């Protein structure tokens, strides 16, 4: 498994062209700006802090497709970046934290968060929104710290 990862053709392509890796990173950043940005729009509404003329349920409906688009870009560019140096990433504490946080954040977004966002405003909704923001920020933080641990 590891030998395959180390010698995978995608990784070779990523490492043998000067622009492939930075290009993937740029897509990755734009992808998470789109997905996290749209999720935070819903969160801000759930917290009662923005777009109060509408409901969080309506905003969720309006942003869902764009969140998905951002996640798709993120989840294509991310694994490509990973394949450029799988062994380093697997051994990186911050990377492992990030993947854990990401899985929790995605799961949370499509279960608890989606369910509560469809419901009425409540203190619970505020808490759920706050947890959502914290989860996504920790994913970003985990990603950045890969380069610093």
């Amino acid at each position: 498994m590891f030998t395959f990862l180390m010698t995978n053709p995608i990784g070779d392509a990523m490492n043998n062209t000067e622009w492939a890796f930075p290009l993937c990173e740029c897509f990755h950043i734009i992808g998470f700006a789109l997905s996290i940005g749209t999720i935070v729009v819903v969160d801000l509404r759930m917290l009662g802090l923005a777009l109060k003329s509408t409901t969080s349920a309506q905003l969720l409906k309006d942003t869902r497709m764009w969140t998905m688009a951002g996640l798709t870009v993120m989840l294509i560019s991310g694994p490509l970046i990973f394949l450029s140096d799988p062994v380093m990433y697997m051994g990186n504490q911050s990377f492992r934290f990030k993947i854990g946080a990401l899985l929790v954040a995605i799961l949370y977004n499509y279960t608890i968060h989606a369910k509560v966002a469809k419901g009425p405003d409540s203190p619970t909704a505020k808490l759920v929104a706050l947890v959502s923001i914290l989860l996504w920020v920790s994913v970003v933080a985990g990603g950045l710290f890969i380069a610093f641990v």
Partner: protein
Amino acid sequence: MTIFHDIQSIGFLTEIRESALVYPVIMTTHLACIAVFGGLILMTDLRLLGLALKSQSIASVVNGLRNWKRLGFCIMVTMGLLLGTSEAEKYQPNPFFWWKMGLLAMVGVHALIFRPLVYNHPEELDRSPVIPTRAKVAAVLSLVLWMSVVTMGRLIGYWEPEQAKVAQVE
């Protein structure tokens, strides 16, 4: 360049540069702001293009997100300034850094032109039967500018001064 050296030698900027934790934390904040507030800019532009949040009026999207974008912009710029000034000497010869600064200046020009035309009167856009072209132009330019800023920002980290390249070859 002495002035760049002088800037980064300011006490707290030296401390930021040399700190193992503060520097990445500032960078994380910078990036988290890009995620959150860059996303808000994207949503506003997509609404102006008629591609997202269509159940909301343009006015409610533009007005409703305005303060959040401003807040995010301020934090993002503050963090960016700390990052840039604490490594001033390293950034000074980097062409991608100056491309990024140039693009940010264009963002300013964009605001000067399109605030009076588009963003300050979103109600007018809602009254129009179709979204006016000037709003769509503003949105497309904003998207292109911000994506270029992000791209140049990321590329800053990939540039090496000529001496370093020569040293590697040798």
